[in-house]
């Protein structure tokens, strides 16, 4: 197994772990962490496989894509955290109710 494939598989594992936690965990902060783990997994697959160029330097396009992705992820996280805090302020709990109607 090459280094590239190993890390790509770890990326797949992180994606699946995050996905599982996103469904199973009720606490909103944990759900936000889960989304971040998922995105890390996707980025890892993207960058690990970028080394298979056969040349000295890896393919720079995935690197640029990941930097863009990291900024998008932190933006979404910041917004999600504030939304969570406002929900806690309104409902007293950092969880989504099972039914949404009043």
């Amino acid at each position, binding site marked *: 197994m090459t280094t590239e494939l190993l890390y790509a598989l770890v990326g797949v594992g992180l994606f*699946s772990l995050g996905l599982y936690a996103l469904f199973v965990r009720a606490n909103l*902060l944990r759900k936000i962490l889960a989304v*971040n*783990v998922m995105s890390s997994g996707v980025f890892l697959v993207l960058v690990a496989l970028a080394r298979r160029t056969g040349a000295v330097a890896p393919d720079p396009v995935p690197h640029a894509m990941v930097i863009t992705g990291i900024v998008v992820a932190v933006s979404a996280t910041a917004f999600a955290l504030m939304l969570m*805090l406002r929900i806690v302020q309104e409902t007293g709990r950092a969880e989504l109710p099972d039914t949404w109607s009043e």
Partner: protein
Amino acid sequence: MDAQNLTQWIFDTLTGLGLLCLAWMALASSQLIKAIVLFVAFGLLMALTWVRLDAVDIALAEVAIGAGLTGALLLAALAKLTAVQTATSKAAHRSPKDRAARKLYRMPAALLLLVAAGLAYSVLSLPLNSRGLSIEVGANLDASGVGNPVTAVLLNFRGYDTLLEIFVLFLALLGVWSLGSLPPHRIEPAGPVLNTLVVVLAPLLILLAAYFLWAGAHGPGGAFQAGATLGAAGVLLQLAGWKPGPGFARLPWKLILLAGPALFILFALFTLVTGQHLLEYAPERAGILILLLETGATFSIGLTLAALFFGERPDDAEGR
């Protein structure tokens, strides 16, 4: 397998397992604070992985943004969470442990394993050699105005992605500000030790940001790493008890906040009016234009990240 390969293999396996374990522990831990600390550790290990994968630019971004600022945001949110929960009269204290979502509790983990296996299979079936776009990037690097291929892709070849992405960051701030304000929570006064640390570190971080900005043209670094470092300085200042006043929602600060997107838009309008392609650089001026755009972006990213850490609109926080 020679000794060097074996060491590398051991290192890779340990790192990979470490990533999976840390992620799992962060997502499964019973206390939120533990989860966050483990998540930050996960981010640091990710940064190490990026270095291992020859992606130093991403490693810098990950340390500064992924682990650093996201960690700070998470910790701040946790502190506010406790404050908000005690301030809310409606606080319905359930069991402190995480209650699994009722409906999805029995979500078939087997199905998920199947998905993971399918994904793993398709990753393994990918062609062993693919050059991607490295040759195209290499062939046009001279015309891009910078020597670092990642910066060339970010600011020139795929500069349009970066334009949209800066607006994503701006949008996050608009979104956070539109959510209104939280009840005030008490911040511990900073002691002499923290103050000294901030006094030493904040100027150093600003210097480092300038270095990243400059270095990005030919080596690892660039606007995002620089902006995140600047943002970290802002976070440090806030940790030491400094608070942005209502003036920070007024025009001069707004202009700095918008320096990045505004410069991008102005440049795009310029190319539109002069009949060029959108965001087209003349090769001889590309270097200086990219530096200009990156400088604007650095200020915007830094200030936006610091503002996101603060949370509500500064004039909202004052008005209550």
